[in-house]
């Protein structure tokens, strides 16, 4: 165990009043100087400002600080900023702790400044205690291959392969089917551009063929996957093509630095009898209807009968309150309306009835809804509790539906064809692919990203990315956007030939471990394996594959596992820090933080000094100051407002011509 840190630097941020309007940071700064192990305690206007970062670097070097704590905003905003500060000063970034006294203190407790101040003391004490037990950790450096495995040669996989090839990577494009293109190749027209789906795919296929650094494998199924980020090893079984005689099945082992999974989706297949599907000949799914349109150039004919009335029933197999598919498939409303416009243009004498629950033609797709309405399409809204009933009476197909737009009137429609608007489902083989690459899947069986907003194409498996609709329902544009986002992430990852992995991984105390195997049982990433040390069976962590979740730690009966940066000492000392009793009197007149006219700061930020130098005893407007400092007006405005709030400057009349206030230094 490393020596407990005894030379800690603490920086408490005013955040221009966002914190110090409610929390008496100045008094806390003084109080914390007495804290065990704290060498420096400062309150600073903006800890993230360049000037303060420079001061911190100077402090670390001159005072030989062995750890730093910044009490400011959420670590999601500035954790990396201050880790870099530590690095630049020669301090290990793991010896840094950020304490969130803004989002989790001054803001939610702005109604109780005194209590907010007390809480901030506890949070900061916890941060100081935690950092005292911090260890100097080194990033895990891994060499990476400049080769990418792209799984799935649909539009997303092909588009990404072309971009990766352009960037100079060797690309293995693996497709399970005998042809490329996936579902896009099946579309007569795609919305919004109206292009032919097959033509789009053919054009991409020509581009794929033109790159010598793309190797396309069709009829190829992945077998074993091993290795980890930088060097995955994937066995691909290539089945012989029926049209080529004498071809034999073979298995190749491909090595890749990163993997992009773009395996797409399966269309929902209605159960037999669902809305009459499979039992009534006039009931088809939307993909089947699209195929019908492709194959009927002049007249739309089904079962030797010309189709003049088409009824679309929306949300089949999607948005099921009681079923498994609770999600909306996003593309199907627009796709259906686009199909309706397409058949009117192609076959003229045809009427469409849309039996829908909600219409979700979001964004620019709304113009299609408008166009469909103008061409005379009829929209009838039903509720999931009262779904349309289909009945076959001789050759007639009748639909009974309760229309929620006309006070629940019962309507009866006759249809030549009933089209079930089926959405997307996760591919049937998604669990198999998930098991091979260890990609987490959700209850809906689609692959899970790390975070839908912050890390939307990354998985917890380092080096494995997801793109397109294998992650969840998406239209073509969104699928390509996500796979290209993954492409950019792969390029950022593999570009330098080496990668640095965060050191937050599980560690086994092999002296305490008695190898019961429980840790390996719960680890989804096979990162814990049995090994022998000092003639005893013990657990060993694979540093490259460990996802850093810590799931293995609580199941260890010997408490022999901990997660770096989340050790017992660190967490328990934080709890101690929260609960340390503080005499409110020690904080001084805490509530006065919001009442004081002038707060004394140890030192003004550099920008304030610059602004004060421009005033030089006189008065200036904000645009004049900004021009003189060659800074943006918005930035100068922000600082001048804060300086005014803190009494560093005061308004000094108005420039009547320009209608700007003058400011001068407060005496």
């Amino acid at each position, binding site marked *: 165990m490393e020596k407990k840190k005894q030379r800690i630097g603490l920086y408490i941020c005013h955040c221009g009043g966002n914190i110090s309007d409610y929390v008496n940071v100045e008094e806390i700064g003084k109080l914390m100087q007495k804290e065990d192990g704290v060498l420096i305690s400062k309150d600073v206007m903006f800890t993230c400002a360049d000037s303060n970062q420079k001061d911190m670097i100077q402090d670390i070097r001159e005072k030989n600080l062995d750890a730093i704590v910044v009490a400011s905003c959420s670590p*999601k905003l500035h954790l990396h900023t201050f880790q870099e500060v530590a690095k630049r000063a020669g301090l290990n970034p793991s010896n840094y702790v950020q304490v969130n006294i803004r*989002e989790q203190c001054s803001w*939610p407790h702005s109604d109780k400044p005194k*209590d907010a101040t007390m*809480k901030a003391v506890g949070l900061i004490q916890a941060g100081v205690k935690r950092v005292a037990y911090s260890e100097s950790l080194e990033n895990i450096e891994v060499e990476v291959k400049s080769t990418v495995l792209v799984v799935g040669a649909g539009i997303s996989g092909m588009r990404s392969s072309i971009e990766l090839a352009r960037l100079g990577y060797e690309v293995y494009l693996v497709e399970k089917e005998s042809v490329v293109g996936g579902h896009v190749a099946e579309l007569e027209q795609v919305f919004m551009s109206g292009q032919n789906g097959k033509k789009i795919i053919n054009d991409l296929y020509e581009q794929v063929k033109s790159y010598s650094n793309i190797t396309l494998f069709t009829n190829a199924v992945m077998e074993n996957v091993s290795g980890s980020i930088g060097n995955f090893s994937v066995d691909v079984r290539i089945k012989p093509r029926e049209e080529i005689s004498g071809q034999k099945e073979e298995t190749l082992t491909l090595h890749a630095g990163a993997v992009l999974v773009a395996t797409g989706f399966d269309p929902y297949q209605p159960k037999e009898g669902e809305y009459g599907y499979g039992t009534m000949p006039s009931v088809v799914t939307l993909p089947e209807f699209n195929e019908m349109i492709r194959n009927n150039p002049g007249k739309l004919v089904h079962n030797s009968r010309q189709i003049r009335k088409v009824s679309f029933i929306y949300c089949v197999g999607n948005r099921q309150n009681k079923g498994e598919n609770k999600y909306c498939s996003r593309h199907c409303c627009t796709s259906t309306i686009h199909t309706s416009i397409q058949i009117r243009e192609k076959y003229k004498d045809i009427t469409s009835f849309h039996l829908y629950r909600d219409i979700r033609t979001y964004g620019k797709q709304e113009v299609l809804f408008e166009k469909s309405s103008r061409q005379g399409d009829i929209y009838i809204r039903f509720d999931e509790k009262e779904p349309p009933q289909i009945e076959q009476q001789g050759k007639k197909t009748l639909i009974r539906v309760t229309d929620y737009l006309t006070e629940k009137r019962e309507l009866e429609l006759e249809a030549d064809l009933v089209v079930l608007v089926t959405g997307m489902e996760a591919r049937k083989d998604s669990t198999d692919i998930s098991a091979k690459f260890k990609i987490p899947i959700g209850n809906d069986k689609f692959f899970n990203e790390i975070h839908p907003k912050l890390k939307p194409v990354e998985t917890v498996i380092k080096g494995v990315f997801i793109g397109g609709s294998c992650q969840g329902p998406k239209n073509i544009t969104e699928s390509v956007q996500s796979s290209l986002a993954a492409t950019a992430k792969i390029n950022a990852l593999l570009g330098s030939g080496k990668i640095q992995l965060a050191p937050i991984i599980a560690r086994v105390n092999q002296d305490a471990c008695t190898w019961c195997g429980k840790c390996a049982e719960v680890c989804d990433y096979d990162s814990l394996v049995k090994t022998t040390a000092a003639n005893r069976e013990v657990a060993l962590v694979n540093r490259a594959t460990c996802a850093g979740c*810590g799931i293995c730690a609580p199941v260890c009966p010997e408490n022999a596992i901990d997660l770096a940066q989340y050790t017992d000492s660190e967490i328990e000392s934080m709890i101690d820090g929260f609960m340390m009793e503080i005499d409110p009197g020690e904080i001084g007149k805490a509530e006065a933080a919001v009442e004081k006219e002038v707060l004394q700061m140890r030192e003004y930020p550099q920008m304030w000094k610059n602004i004060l130098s421009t005033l030089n005893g006189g008065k200036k407007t904000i645009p004049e100051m900004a021009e003189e400092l060659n800074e943006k007006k918005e930035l100068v405005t922000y600082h001048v407002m804060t300086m005014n709030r803190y009494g560093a400057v005061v308004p000094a009349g108005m420039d009547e011509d320009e209608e700007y206030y003058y400011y001068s230094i407060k005496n």
Partner: protein
Amino acid sequence: MSDTKSSPRILVFSTDTISDPGIDQAGQRKIHYSPSVYVISLPCSSGIKPRWIMHAFEQGFDGVFIAADGIECSYNHKCAEYTNNIIVETQQMMKDKNINPKRIRMAALCSVCAEPFVNHMENFSRILVELEN
């Protein structure tokens, strides 16, 4: 007397990428909750050790709330099950120490669950006050 003294002290274990951003959002939106709520963020709720929870009770916390990821957990689809196992194990330890097992709670919170978090804190505080009476 300040609220930090009169309100039950609650320790929340949140998760870095899902529930902690939801708690942050409560602050960003200036939705008020008790200042006696303290948060420790971890990668995954399945990594919470029972001994940490017991340590919190020993140090004087009145309740421990686990803001789990539930089905949104990016590490493991069994996260809720594993976290629940941790709670069950801890509750046994609590019984052995005569601590009411109702003093620990778990709920799934997402990255935009600001109001649900605040509601959970209010409800849990109420329960903890009732346990004192």
